[in-house]
């Protein structure tokens, strides 16, 4: 407790507060700009921290990490351009709320949820970090596979429309995720002798194409409606605000579930905020009384992924600080920064560098509070764009889509990929195939495939290995139940 108070006192020193504020501003910029993620932001920042004290350098990175994870949600909600990969799921309901003229509520819920999820994970980090790391280490390949299957079991129900067509979209996403070098065998697949495809279908360019470009094509195709006509897209002034308290209270279990899930998934090495946001969303769908409403523009669809992805940020710090293992791509880059400053993350860090560790805890806590300030400033700037006519907004979105996809790997192949996915998105919308299920298939595809392959190698190709292990067996049973639930419910209702 004494160490914790020292940590808070250290962070509250003026110079450290300034560092957090700088990190917050940079994080918001990086979060809002499409194609530029937390890992890149931290990597760019490392050289600037060389001359700083270790605590100052690390605090600026922590603030950047937390606020950039949130920042992506603003453009997801306002323009359907996910600024960051963890904000992709937020587009599903966030942008639909903007189309209904409720962007203020959506943005307010995103700030509140991100802040809440982040603070929850910091509390978990302070209280039970070492014990949680031990549980996470029990997760083997079979458990990862079962977890991915559980996530996929609700995909087809997301976004409304035909379940069969959505299931086909999920499978298409899983298939597209196989392009590029196979992670297990190292063999290139479906590259057609093109070097740009060796790394596979990069996620951000694909998501920008599917969501941003496809949306522009669809919007410009529709002849602009007058106010009051059916199909009129509301472009009202954004008034940032929270939904009524009773709505927030109604979502209490959703918040708790997403925060717990996000924190735990953040702790698992290699499972970052993107996967956590998806699981937050899919579990919200699974537990909802009206799952069909997800994807049509409800605040639950913003609250769940935003709580989970910021909770995953704190979660990802658990294995970093207790075991020296990165929980996400950004924390992997952070390890480099730690080493540069002469700090070796690992089990002894909390003993040898207690002041630094507790200052990081406090820094994470304040960074999550800074989301509120950063969110309000970022939104104030970005909502002004909504006053423009769609001829300019649409053109601007296409320009940002191109530079956003290019800046991921400085590759024109990614830009063409974005264009291709934009065209595909246009046809998918037209013929009723869900975009969200395809993206979710692409997120979970690599996890599902590689963990299955590795589990089978470990078990000498005995499939029983997957169901005889307690955690994986339970998760797979849950997945089967979840998949069969609509039919079971129909059967029970029929008997009644």
């Amino acid at each position: 407790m004494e160490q914790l108070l020292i940590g808070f006192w250290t962070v509250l020193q003026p110079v450290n507060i300034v560092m957090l504020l700088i990190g917050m501003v940079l994080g918001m910029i990086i979060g809002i700009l499409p194609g530029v993620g937390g890992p890149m932001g931290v990597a760019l920042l490392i050289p600037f921290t060389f001359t700083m004290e270790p605590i100052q350098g690390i605090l600026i990175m922590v603030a950047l990490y937390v606020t950039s994870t949130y920042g992506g949600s603003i453009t997801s909600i306002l323009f359907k351009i996910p600024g960051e990969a963890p904000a992709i799921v937020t587009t599903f309901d966030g942008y639909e709320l903007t189309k209904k003229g409720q962007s203020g509520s959506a943005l307010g819920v995103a700030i509140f949820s991100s802040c809440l999820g982040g603070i929850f994970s910091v509390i978990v980090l302070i209280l039970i970090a070492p014990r949680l790391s031990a549980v996470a280490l029990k997760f083997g390949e079979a458990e990862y596979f079962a977890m991915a299957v559980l996530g996929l079991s609700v995909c087809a129900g997301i976004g409304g429309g035909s379940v069969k067509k959505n299931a086909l979209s999920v499978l298409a996403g899983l298939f597209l995720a196989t392009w590029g070098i196979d992670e297990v065998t190292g063999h290139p697949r479906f590259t057609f002798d093109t070097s740009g495809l060796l790394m596979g279908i990069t996620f951000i360019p694909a998501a920008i194409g599917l969501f941003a470009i496809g949306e522009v094509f669809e919007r410009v195709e529709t002849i602009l409606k007058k106010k009051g006509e059916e199909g009129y897209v509301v472009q009202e002034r954004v008034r940032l605000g929270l939904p009524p308290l009773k709505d927030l209270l109604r979502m209490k279990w959703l918040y708790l579930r997403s925060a717990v899930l996000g924190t735990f998934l953040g702790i698992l090495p290699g499972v970052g905020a993107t996967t956590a946001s998806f699981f937050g969303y899919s579990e919200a769908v699974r537990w909802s009384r009206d799952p069909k409403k997800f994807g049509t523009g409800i605040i639950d669809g913003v609250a769940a992924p935003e709580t989970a992805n910021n909770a995953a940020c704190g979660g990802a710090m658990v294995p970093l600080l207790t075991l020296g293992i990165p929980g996400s791509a950004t924390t992997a880059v952070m390890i480099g920064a730690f080493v540069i400053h002469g700090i070796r993350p690992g089990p002894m860090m909390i003993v040898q560098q207690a002041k630094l560790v507790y200052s990081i805890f406090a820094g994470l806590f304040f960074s999550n509070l800074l989301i509120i300030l950063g969110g309000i400033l970022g939104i104030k700037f970005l909502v002004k764009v909504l006053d423009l006519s769609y001829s300019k907004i649409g053109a601007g979105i296409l320009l940002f889509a191109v530079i956003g996809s290019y800046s991921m790997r400085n590759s024109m192949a990614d830009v063409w990929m974005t264009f291709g996915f934009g065209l595909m998105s246009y046809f998918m919308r037209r013929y009723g195939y869900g975009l969200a299920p395809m993206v979710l298939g692409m997120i979970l595809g690599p996890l599902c495939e590689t963990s299955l392959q590795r589990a089978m190698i470990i078990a000498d190709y005995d499939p029983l290995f997957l169901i005889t292990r307690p955690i994986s067996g339970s998760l797979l049973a849950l997945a089967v139940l979840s998949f069969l639930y609509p039919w079971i419910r129909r059967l029970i209702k029929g008997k009644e």
Partner: protein
Amino acid sequence: MTWKGDFHSKGASVSDIIVCLIIIASSVFFYVQTFSFPSIAGYEEMGPEFWPRLTLTGIVILALIIMIGSILERRRGTSPKVESKEKKNTARAVVCAGILFFFIISISYIGFLLSAFLSMMVLAYALGERNKLLLLFFSFVMVAMIYLSFGKLLFVPMPRGIWIFRELSYYLY
């Protein structure tokens, strides 16, 4: 090229059948590609071809189910033929896609900044903006924002193009 009605709802079953046939044909094409993957020692039972084949088989089965369902609907005469009141201007989407296509191609030749500036003006014009001064101002501001945020702040090496455009770009970035 303005047409009335939603393509999906107007002749839903026919379009579904055509789309499913395209999906099946593409899946078969990719499935055949998997036979060119080598057998890797130690991974004979679950090699690089296993997961693509599994997902492609699932895609073909689902496409067949959707297609058969559409054929049956059509035979029964129950396919939805709802006349949508929504007017759509497909030409505008095609023009937009065309401009985007030429924008991406031109980046490699005349560099990012110039192609972005020209494409912004053409795109905003195609989408309905007619004020020439505003078109110039808007395009300039957008490109300047991209240049400052991506080029200067984040050090993204933007494409310079070829020949004189490449030489000129060095004066800017």
